[in-house]
């Protein structure tokens, strides 16, 4: 199966570019804003978008993303409403959406019903899923289901994952490998760890899948560090923290969306080197 994620990475590779994948929280502060932010990100030329499903007990996320999840849940976020909103957006021919990758806790998928979740996710226009609390060992049955639904199941590899375990994980993965840059939770960090380069080289020797680096990336200099070593990068907290401004009475909604777009545009430009 050639997914839209694979196609995107292949195209970027032929253009000698890295993929820029911003992360946004669905429903922060509401789904109408999520849709407008997605349109803005598409206009700015981002390559893929990671859409986070708000979850009440996110143990892999730092405070910025947790607060964003809390805002969305307090505003009445529901999974089905997100799917409906994205389905309508995908059908809008005036928007050329990049591939969407859902970041979602298995707690949500299980409770919603895996088959129903996958069907609705595919109908809503998702190309793949990242399920951070479903490590390779537990993912076999769900991986089968995602294949049936023609979605990619992206697997995560941490700097603490031993090589034999990494081999098993990359064999079961598709779409891309989510390379966690540091042991820890999501969040902005000043510098990327020096051992990241060796980790990426080691991963490169184990898989032909694209390598996308996440956790701690926020500025163009980080992207320069990754050039030639990774195929893409994910920015979460640095974008999500800007969503807090939607509740700032001194800023209009359009100003905040425009500011998020400007930042995304700068990072998208950085991928071209």
């Amino acid at each position, binding site marked *: 199966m050639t997914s839209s994620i694979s196609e995107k990475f292949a195209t970027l590779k032929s253009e000698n570019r890295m993929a820029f994948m911003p992360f946004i929280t669905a429903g922060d502060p509401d789904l109408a804003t999520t849709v407008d932010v997605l349109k803005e990100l598409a206009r700015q030329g981002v390559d893929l978008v990671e859409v986070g499903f708000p*979850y*009440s*007990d*996110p*143990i*892999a*996320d*730092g*405070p910025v993303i*947790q607060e964003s999840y*809390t805002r969305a*849940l307090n505003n009445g976020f*529901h*999974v089905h409403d997100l799917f409906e909103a994205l389905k309508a957006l995908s059908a809008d021919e005036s928007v050329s959406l990049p591939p969407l990758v859902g970041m979602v*806790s*298995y*707690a*949500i*998928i*299980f*409770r*919603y019903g895996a088959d129903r979740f996958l069907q609705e996710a595919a109908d809503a226009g998702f190309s793949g899923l990242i399920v*951070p*609390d*479903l*490590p*390779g*060992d*537990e993912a076999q049955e769900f991986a089968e289901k995602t294949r049936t639904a023609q979605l990619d199941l992206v*697997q*995560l*590899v*941490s700097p*603490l*994952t*031993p090589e034999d*375990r990494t081999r098993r*994980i990359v064999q079961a993965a598709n779409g891309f490998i989510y390379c*966690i840059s*540091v*042991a*820890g*939770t999501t969040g902005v960090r000043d510098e990327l760890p020096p051992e990241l380069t060796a980790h990426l080289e080691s991963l490169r020797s184990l898989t032909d899948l694209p390598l996308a680096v996440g956790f701690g990336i926020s500025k163009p200099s980080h992207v320069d560090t990754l050039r030639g070593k990774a195929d893409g990068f994910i920015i979460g907290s640095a974008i999500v923290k800007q969503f807090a401004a939607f509740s700032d009475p001194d800023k209009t909604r359009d100003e905040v969306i425009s500011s998020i777009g400007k930042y995304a545009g700068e990072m998208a430009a950085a991928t071209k080197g």
Partner: protein
Amino acid sequence: MTTSLSNVPDSSGRFGEFGRRFVPETLMHALEELTQEYEKAKQDPAFQAELDDLLKHYVGRPNPLYFAERLTEHCGGGKIYFKREDLNHTGAHKINNTMGQALLTMRMGKKRVIAETGAGQHGVASAVACARFGLECIVYMGEEDIRRQKLNVFNMKMMGAEVRGVSSGSKTLRDAVNEAMRDWMSSVETTHYIIGSVIGPHPFPMMVRDFQSVIGKEAREQCLAQTGKLPDHVIACVGGGSNSAGMFYPFIDDEGVKLTGVEAGGRGPEPGEHASTLSYGAKGVLHGSFGYVLQDDDGQTMDVHSISAGLDYPGVGPEHSYWKDSGRVNYTAITDDEALEGFQTMARLEGIIPAIESSHAIAYAVKAARQASPDETIVVCLSGRGDKDVNEVARLLGREI
């Protein structure tokens, strides 16, 4: 059927369909290492001898199985016995587990420990174990629980632990677990997370159960010695479920022994008013394992309520989930008001001030004893003493201290 109940979990941490590991990849290697180290320690006579010695000379085990004559008379039915975990050093069962896990921490060459606590008893027991062995100790505690449990917070600090308040969510145990998991994500190479209940990813539910099984093993032997037979009914309170898992496990293959877990019924059965996960929850994932969870239709964890900081947790150990579905253990709920009544009855009739957690089990035991005949024996796990709760109880009763 019943003989297989004691042979879980399997090597992947499955109690039937429950348990397993639903955690970020960053933690997987540490869980593998911990599993291997625990398996080695379990087979190591030197480890077991050191733990036994600590439990005997430091914790004060075996603690008594006490016949509550006045409470029995008051109920006018079955004979009520208490397994006196309240007489352990630190005044609760939690220390059985922290001693074991502190020894494991040192076996793994780690110097830093993190823990989470609700009522503070596990935090105190972790602080004690770390002070005893010279380990750095950080305890995560919800700010609401810090308010409710000032005495335990003070005690932890006295023993050198750092107490970190958690202000997210409901500011209670569940949020403290989230925060401790996050700390562990970034410190896993140097830090052991002493989980305080039979929850979390494999091997924690198995390991904590094993360390707590000393409760049920002693109670079983003492009951045979003191009454000449096994108990007819064993009762313990269930939040995450560690005192009850430790109490029930050694009886699990004794088909004639009725087992009852008592959850926090709070103010009533409506969502958000109680913490009765097994009574009202559904299957799902929380804090790294699969079991019953109080959650909405989207899998979002619900807020819970209990008079007891130690019981207001929206999940429960996977083995309890397994026992519920197998029918081996009966789970029921006792309300805040009934627990308060149990607390006062115990204090007046037996001169024992119980933990408010244990008061749930006591309140249910009173009901059960009334239905039982005088030749029936009911053993209740008195999981902890109530010193930590007296301020909160006084407040709820409208009295001044």
